[in-house]
């Protein structure tokens, strides 16, 4: 059997070879046959006959082998089937043709009519079968792909309409001339710019602007006003398709109407309208509040509008989610934290019909937590992070305050664009040392960032050359950048100066002039031009971003391309106008969305990411992965604090002390400390007055033993913890000495440092603060003798090194490093410096504006979560503290875990599965694994 199979397979694969014989023979036979019609060229008869016989024979074999190929090589599909049917039909008809021919020849009077007809049919079938076969091997669009018609999506029916409108006119009005001019320019844009634009000047011809059009190109004057016949353009577009000089050379030729339009335009004097030609679709700037439909029983304006949309799209309203799901969603969306179990329960039990709206209000009024959640959104959007570099100053302090105070969006934009103290960083741009591309000059960065973040328009392309993706020109981009420049800017096309100076303008000049003597003047004008009702784009852009944050997908996508069509313009516009009317109150916008029924619908699932892009139809909110910051904070809330230290401390009450360590050098250069123990001393004087209280704060990376005046006081191996201890009884008047053994862990050199503060309160109200600084001394070797004693001579020891400097900066500010009481139990992730764990979970590095984060999980992320040392350490710590808190009662632990992490009771089944692992009396390791399993579950990882 097997032998037979391979033979059949081989024969099958000969099919593609064999098919060429019937094709060649039968087609030529038909061709020759036509030459014999009317009894001519009798000499051909014998040859044709043989061609038909052999062709028919091969056709039969081809069909047979084709069938082998299909069955043996397992081809299938409609195309294959169609090819098969037509192929078999060809073979059958070829055979019949041969038989009819044979019969006809045998008769005395030769009548070839029937045979000729059959041959013709056979060849037609053959052609179809052959074409289908070719599609199989070369792909279905093999032929059609190169047809000009398939490349060109532009079809302009306007030409005909306009033409018929203008034809009857004896004299064109100014308006008509304008229209004609714009139409022709639009034609140029679609048909000619490909080669004749500023970006690509084939034949030295530019059709993109007035100068270029009237200057002409290498072949002479493109346009001679009034004289189409002398105009090169007209001469070229009327040439026949096969002429080498015909224009356009690429794509379809101009239609009759289009040619007529160009002719008319030139004949009428080739009037040039100064209005811009919009080649790409562009959203209206203006914003009008749509009238709300009158829908009974629906109160919320958004719901009314969506109801109409749903009707139109045949979508049914689903029931809103329950209280439990709602409170969780609302907490995560407004303050980025999980609700405590008792809060959830009292919310559920609350019978107040307005409780959902009231909850949103309550959450929005929690200014600190609201700010610490939304800060991440703004940091991404304004590419602000906790460092300053190359003149790019961080704006954290200003931003934090703006959010806490809930400044209006108008004020925020005004202050970003025309900076006040603290907000300069946004438009400042990074000044790179060295040479940078002209399109990356700081002024251009400002233009790009404002364009992208605030206006939802891409200025990046146009800052190098006229954009290929929008109507923006190089001129406009430079004009925009000029606003921020204290000197005139020369236009650079693709980094080459073109000898043209820019004139200050905003991207949308119709909004008003931004010209002014000084930068300050212009910035003031810019802020006024941007922040006005007429600039609907500004408000649509932010509204759309907030919608995306709360609903999982924007009304317009991508969020930065606001010229794209919204899935429902009315929803977007109503929200935007309502937002303006609220005094551009961001919290109002959040509330408007969150109190709608639409927000409270169950999540809609999508099988493919693509389903959210093209042809998207809104059905409800989209499942959202919780952000790196939300995940970190949630873990800090329920398991153990992830981050003890912040990069920005809104309390501002921390003690500014530095981390010190033994100075480690290599050939005169400071290097990271090698692992191991180092010895530190610091002596200080206490005056004779009575001491009221002496308190120490200490944290050492990685561990320490602290001595005061020869006595061992404290030790700790966790650098994240700040130890606070009363040392009053160890102090004495006169000379006192602090001695510390510090140890750096690890296998390779890595950051190490002592952070220390001692506060002395005297009875007379005076006080003294001693901090870790470079006056401390240290030793690499274990000193001989009683080195912790006050009287020990440390004069041979060397001065310590500040390891908190820029190059070695590795620590943030520990929240606990303060003598004042404070309420924060952990550092909110949004305030923490970029960290590898959060980076893996998708927090961007904010070198450039980021307006949406990746929504799919990655392997690297999963690895970080599965075996990352950092996260594992937190789980371990959490398990220890849970066992301390809840004892070793598995039941209590499971119930608490589910309530805290998922805001619900575990099902019996879940409980059983977990108890299987935990046993009755859980050990730390098992508990750690249960934590992990619950935290990794989709229910925890997504906002559902």
């Amino acid at each position, binding site marked *: 059997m097997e032998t037979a199979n391979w033979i059949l397979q081989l024969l099958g694969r000969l099919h593609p070879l064999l098919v060429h014989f019937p094709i060649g023979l039968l087609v030529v036979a038909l061709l020759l046959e036509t030459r014999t019609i009317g009894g001519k060229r009798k000499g051909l008869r014998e040859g044709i006959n043989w061609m038909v016989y052999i062709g028919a024979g091969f056709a039969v074999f081809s069909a047979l082998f084709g069938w082998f190929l299909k069955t043996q090589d397992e081809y299938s599909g409609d195309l294959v089937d169609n090819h098969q049917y037509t192929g078999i039909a060809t073979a059958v008809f070829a055979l019949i043709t041969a038989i009819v021919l044979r019969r006809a020849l045998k008769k005395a009077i030769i009548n070839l009519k029937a045979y000729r007809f059959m041959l013709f049919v056979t060849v037609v079938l053959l052609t179809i079968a052959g074409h289908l076969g070719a599609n199989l091997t070369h792909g279905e669009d093999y032929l059609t792909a190169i047809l000009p018609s398939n490349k060109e999506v532009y079809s302009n029916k306007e030409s005909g309409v306009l033409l018929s409108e203008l034809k009857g006119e004896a004299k064109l009005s100014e308006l008509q001339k304008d229209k004609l001019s714009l139409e022709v320019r639009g034609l140029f844009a679609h048909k000619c710019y490909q080669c004749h634009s500023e970006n690509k000047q084939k034949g030295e011809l530019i059709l993109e602007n007035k100068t270029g059009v009237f200057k002409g190109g290498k072949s002479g004057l493109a346009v001679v006003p009034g004289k189409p016949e002398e105009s090169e353009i007209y001469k070229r577009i009327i040439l026949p398709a096969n002429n080498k000089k015909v224009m356009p050379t690429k794509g379809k030729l101009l239609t009759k109407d289009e040619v007529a339009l160009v002719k008319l335009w030139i004949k009428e004097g080739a009037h040039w309208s100064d209005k811009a030609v919009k080649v790409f679709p562009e959203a209206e700037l203006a914003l009008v509040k749509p009238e709300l439909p009158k829908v009974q029983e629906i109160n919320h304006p958004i719901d009314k509008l969506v109801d109409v949309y749903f009707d139109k799209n045949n979508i049914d309203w689903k029931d809103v989610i329950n209280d439990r799901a709602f409170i969780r969603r609302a907490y995560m969306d407004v303050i980025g934290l999980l609700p405590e179990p008792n809060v959830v329960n009292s919310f559920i039990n609350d019978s107040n019909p307005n409780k959902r709206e009231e909850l949103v209000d309550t959450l929005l009024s929690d200014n600190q937590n609201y700010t610490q959640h939304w800060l991440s959104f703004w940091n991404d959007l304004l590419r602000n992070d906790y460092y300053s570099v190359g003149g790019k100053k961080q704006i954290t302090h200003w931003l934090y305050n703006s959010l806490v105070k809930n400044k209006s969006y108008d004020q925020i934009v005004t202050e970003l664009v025309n900076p006040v103290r603290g907000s300069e960083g946004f438009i400042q741009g990074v000044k*790179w040392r060295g040479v940078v*591309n002209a399109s990356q000059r700081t002024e251009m960065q400002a233009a790009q960032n404002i364009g992208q973040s605030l206006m939802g328009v891409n200025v990046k392309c146009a800052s190098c050359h006229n954009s290929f993706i929008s109507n923006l020109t190089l001129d406009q981009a430079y004009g925009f950048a000029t606003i921020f420049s204290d000197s005139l800017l020369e236009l650079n096309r693709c980094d080459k100066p073109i000898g043209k100076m820019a004139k200050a303008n905003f991207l949308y000049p119709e909004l008003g002039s931004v010209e002014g003597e000084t930068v300050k003047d212009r910035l003031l004008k810019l802020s006024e031009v941007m922040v006005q009702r007429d600039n609907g784009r500004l408000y649509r852009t932010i509204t759309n971003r907030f919608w995306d944050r709360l609903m999982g997908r924007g009304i317009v996508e991508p969020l930065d391309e606001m010229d794209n069509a919204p899935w429902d313009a009315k929803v977007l516009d109503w929200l935007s106008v309502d937002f303006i009317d609220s005094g551009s109150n961001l919290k109002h916008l959040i509330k408007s969305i969150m109190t709608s029924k639409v927000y409270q619908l169950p999540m809609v699932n999508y099988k493919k990411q693509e389903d959210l892009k093209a042809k998207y139809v809104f059905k409800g909110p989209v499942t959202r992965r919780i952000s790196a910051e939300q995940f970190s904070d949630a873990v800090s809330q329920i398991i153990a604090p992830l981050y003890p230290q912040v990069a920005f401390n809104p309390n501002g009450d921390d003690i500014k002390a530095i981390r010190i360590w033994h100075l480690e050098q290599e050939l005169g250069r400071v290097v990271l400390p090698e692992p191991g123990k180092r010895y530190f001393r610091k002596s200080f004087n206490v005056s004779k007055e009575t001491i009221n209280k002496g308190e120490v704060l200490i944290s050492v990376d990685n561990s320490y033993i602290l001595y005061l005046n020869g006595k061992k006081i404290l030790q700790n191996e966790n650098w994240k913890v700040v130890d606070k201890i009363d040392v009053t009884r160890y102090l004495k008047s006169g000379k006192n000495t602090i001695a510390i053994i510090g140890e750096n862990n690890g*296998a390779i050199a890595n950051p190490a440092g002592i952070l220390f503060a001692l506060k002395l309160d005297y009875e007379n109200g005076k006080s003294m603060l001693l901090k870790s600084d470079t006056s401390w001394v240290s030793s690499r070797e274990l000193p001989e003798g009683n080195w912790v004693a006050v009287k020990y001579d440390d004069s041979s020891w060397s001065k310590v090194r500040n390891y908190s400097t820029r190059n070695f900066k590795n620590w943030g500010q520990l929240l606990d490093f303060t003598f004042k009481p404070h309420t924060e139990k952990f550092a909110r992730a949004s305030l923490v410096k970029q960290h590898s764990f959060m980076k893996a979970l998708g927090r961007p*590095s904010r070198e450039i504006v980021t307006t949406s984060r990746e929504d799919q*999980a990655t*392997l690297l992320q999963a690895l970080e979560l599965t075996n990352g040392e950092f996260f594992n350490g937190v789980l371990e710590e959490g398990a220890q503290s849970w066992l301390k808190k809840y004892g070793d009662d598995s039941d209590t632990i499971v119930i608490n875990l589910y309530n805290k992490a998922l805001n619900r009771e575990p099902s019996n089944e879940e409980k059983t599965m977990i108890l299987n692992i935990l046993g009755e009396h859980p050990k730390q390791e098992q508990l750690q694994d249960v934590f992990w399993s619950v935290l990794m579950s*989709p229910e925890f990882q997504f906002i559902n």
Partner: protein
Amino acid sequence: MDTNKSRRDFLKKMSAASLSAAATTIPGFSFLSSCSPEVQKMASTADTVILLWMAGGMAHTETFDPKAYVPFEKGVESKRVLSTFPKKPTVVDDLYFSEGLEGIGSVMDKGAIIRSYKSADLGHILHTRHQYHWHTCYEPPQSVQAPHIGSWIAKELGPANPVIPPFIAMGQRFTMGESEELKAFHSAGFLGTEYGPFLIPDPSSGLESVRPPKGMSLKRFEARYKLYKELANKSEVMEQGSDYQRESLMRSMEQSYRLLNSPEAKVFDLSEEPKEVYDTYNTGRFGLGCLLAKRLAMNGGRFISVSTEYEPFLGWDTHENGHTRLKKMKALIDRPIAQLVKDLDETGHLDRTLIILASEFSRDAIMEGRPGKKVKDQVNQPDIIEHEKHYGMHRHFTDGSSILMWGGGVKKGLVYGKTADERPCSSIENPVVIDEVHQSVYHALGVHPETHYEIEGRPFYTTPDGKGKPILDLFGNPMKSSKENIA
């Protein structure tokens, strides 16, 4: 593919396939347009790349392109000093390396040297900018985040072995180096973190990154995953139907579990090596990185970088004590690199593994930047050297440096390009720029030179505008070294 096809056609075709890859600023990777299959089916001469990264600026005149040796003596003029080491012959006739690199010299019959690499002219010298440029092929700053060459390769070719991440970066810690602003050279840029580097800062603990967490037994690890799966599958959320985001989470978790539970993780275990081998490689973290790179290359690594960690003023970044420091640096790299080449050659893996040694730029005793382009001096180098501290190459030189390559179809014993023997020791023959280096790597791997994605509506190529050309002279039939010819 049809080479006559104009770029426009190519571009059109690509962008048609890409639908709306510009959908988001950082698009989901599945949404990036991918090259058509006909393009991917290109001949290749390598499957794996090992990049040995000499971070900090390695002086060519002190390493692989020695010039006239001027020994140290008090009072010697800086401008007289071209090399502070004598030159030593290598296995290839007429090819000399600086003293201390005899090991690498002994394997040059298996590889090629480019002596005419010209770094970008970025004005004022900044390591991180040049490193970014070398690794991404784009001059920083860029308005979109450019991906590292390793990420491009990870994206285009995927892992060679499903349980070994396709882009592994050893030696450089996330927290080290200059300001974060330029950390982009570490990242996958717009390709998305999926294609970012799997970081192994310390190769001796590389195994820990691919095993269950420290202290967790395999049994416990399996039980934990089982519980997670059960809980997830039973949860109400999963009953709501499939969702691509949830699926991607479940899929990634499973991949990660499989990888960490895979016996192949042993590849990362350096303790499996015989003691002599371990000791030969063990000159420090870099040497052990080479050892791990060897094991990865033999078992299906795709892009592996081993870096001498960059830290300002340390490593190759010699602002003073150049001579003394380079002795150490040479001792760090010479033995393990030579052994790496030998070991891969012996097992036959070198045939399909392309090893590259490179640095962001070179150094010089006098010239900062390049001839004709005066940039601000960053180093105080006296005219007369009185102290050994000032003996060495301390300024940043961008007009000529060396790149070494072995295996992966590269000609053997080839010396390509040349620098001047007198100061300035610039590239004077066959100058090579980064676009050509990248395209040569892509050429070896069979990645189409015009590979690109649409990002924010514009095509973004592996090399700027897709214009780079591979240096075809580097490849071809093994050119026997002259010694073999005689034999």
